[in-house]
């Protein structure tokens, strides 16, 4: 599986868990789920794009 798919799967399960744990009404749970899921996936993609400005460069030599 790709890293993006795994990250989305991770975000999905964690969001479902916290939405069910910290909200009582179904509508509030769904709202919190989308907030958490969007923050996790969107935040990760935003960070990935930010890393464009910090290239890793050539690999370090093996001592």
């Amino acid at each position, binding site marked *: 599986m790709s890293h993006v798919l795994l990250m989305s799967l*991770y975000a999905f*399960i*964690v969001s*479902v*868990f916290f939405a069910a*744990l910290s*909200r*009582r*009404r179904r509508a509030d749970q769904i709202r919190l789920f989308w907030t958490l899921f969007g923050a996790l996936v969107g935040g990760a993609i935003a960070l990935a794009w930010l890393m464009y400005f910090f290239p890793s460069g050539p690999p370090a030599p093996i001592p």
Partner: protein
Amino acid sequence: MKSKSAQSVELPLANPWLTMGLAWLVPGLGHLRLGRGARAALFFACCLSMLVIGCLLEGRMPWAFSGSPLERLATFGGLGLGLPYLIARLGFDYSGDVTAPGYEYGGAFIVTAGLMNLLLVLDVWDLCWGKELAVDDEPSATTDRDEASESEADDDSGANSGAKEASA
């Protein structure tokens, strides 16, 4: 009107230590014992799916009781999953494959499952004492459960003390 003893002494709805132990042993079992079957099933599915995905990725399953503090911390987090973790680690001798591409990624799934179950254990403790972590986005709106709990509070603590005696 509440009696003086009911105001000064808080009584648990169920035996908190036993319920916490059950909640740690099997994810969701504490909530099931407190009559929250649907939530229990959801929590069980969340925790177990995290563990299964982590194992399918051949992720790291920490098992260190000495050495690096971070490794011990990861072990503590993983052990939070309770029986499923112990069965996988001791029963199936699973420890992950360090050469697998998903070794670290799968390890994150496994440790997160344990940490989620530790949160469930804490939630069960609160629920035993009549508190609830779950809230409404709009506190002013009164739900059926609020009305029910208010009516129970008005009825003094007779049922609560009965539960305390039963758990004792």
